[in-house]
């Protein structure tokens, strides 16, 4: 991961602004927000590699925010910033799937090292998964070969179709927001292609039509959801 993109949410403006600068100096891209709701809005509209969440914040606390973030992307790593010696905070954070926690006041270097360690671990997991194929119902998808097999018929996907289907697979049974999809495919926000996205979703629907175990739902105002239906005949 060359330049990890971090979402950092902390209401302590002074220290967090300087921490952001420190992390940027270390090569990270950092989006900083000062309350939970602003953090959630940012998460919905940009792809991130890791979130750093303070627990006690205005508008939405870190625990609630983490739950909502995990509903959108279950795999996103989260580091909690906890108050001094609040053991119950640490336990609750870990129960919510946090990858690590730091007690305030925290050292900027320690935060950076923990971020780096988690991202390194995630990268190893991703490398292992690169070789994987996605399988469901009567279908199999190989992102590397851009090959989709539905009910025995092999379909060669274009690069964009494959990227989109991979994003759907990574967000299976979860919301894939339009912004995350578009940035994931085209990267640059200035080159959003909302209309094209609809076209590509329609194409994937057509390809997958023969497989009753899978469906792409429209979620009005949010994006899409790829539903894998367990138990549907293979």
């Amino acid at each position: 991961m060359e330049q990890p993109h971090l979402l950092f949410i902390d209401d302590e403006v002074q220290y967090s602004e300087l921490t952001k600068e420190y992390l940027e100096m270390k090569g990270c891209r950092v989006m900083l927000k000062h309350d939970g709701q602003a953090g959630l809005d940012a998460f919905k509209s940009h792809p991130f590699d890791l979130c750093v969440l303070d627990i006690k914040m205005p508008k939405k606390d870190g625990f609630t925010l983490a739950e909502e973030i995990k509903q959108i992307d279950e795999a996103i790593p989260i580091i909690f910033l906890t108050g001094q010696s609040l053991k119950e905070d640490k336990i609750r954070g870990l129960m919510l799937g946090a990858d690590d926690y730091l007690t305030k006041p925290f050292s900027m270097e320690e935060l950076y090292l923990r971020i780096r360690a988690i991202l390194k671990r995630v990268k190893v997991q991703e490398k292992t998964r690169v070789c994987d194929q996605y399988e469901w119902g009567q279908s199999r998808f190989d992102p590397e070969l851009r090959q989709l097999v539905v009910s025995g018929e092999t379909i060669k996907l274009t690069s964009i179709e494959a990227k989109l289907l991979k994003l759907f697979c990574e967000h299976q049974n979860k919301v894939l927001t339009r912004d995350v999809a578009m940035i994931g495919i085209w990267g640059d926000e200035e080159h959003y292609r909302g209309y094209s996205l609809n076209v590509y979703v329609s194409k994937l629907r057509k390809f997958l039509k023969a497989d009753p175990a899978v469906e792409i739902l429209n979620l009005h105002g949010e994006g899409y959801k790829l539903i894998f239906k367990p138990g549907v005949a293979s």
Partner: protein
Amino acid sequence: MDLSLLGNLMGDDQQLVERFVAIFKTQVPGQVSMLPELCEAQDWEGLSTALHSLKTQFNYVGMNGFAEQMRSLEEQVDSGQTDGISLQIRNFTQEFQQSWQP
């Protein structure tokens, strides 16, 4: 102020420490002056969040007495013991203003 902790946390980067202190001096008095207003409005959630934030900031600059007061007030607000809180906040605000030398 005792800036040794802040220095450690910032990897002894003197520039960062100085910038933090400059921002601290600009913003913290304003945050402290908000406390009585939050108390009067009985915005307990907002008050608790403000106390929590001030607690950490006082800790960063080694103002441990103030940090301890913030911790105690936050604990009272969080546990719903808000009866005598208004007076305590007023006392703290006065103490802070008297001892504050920007």
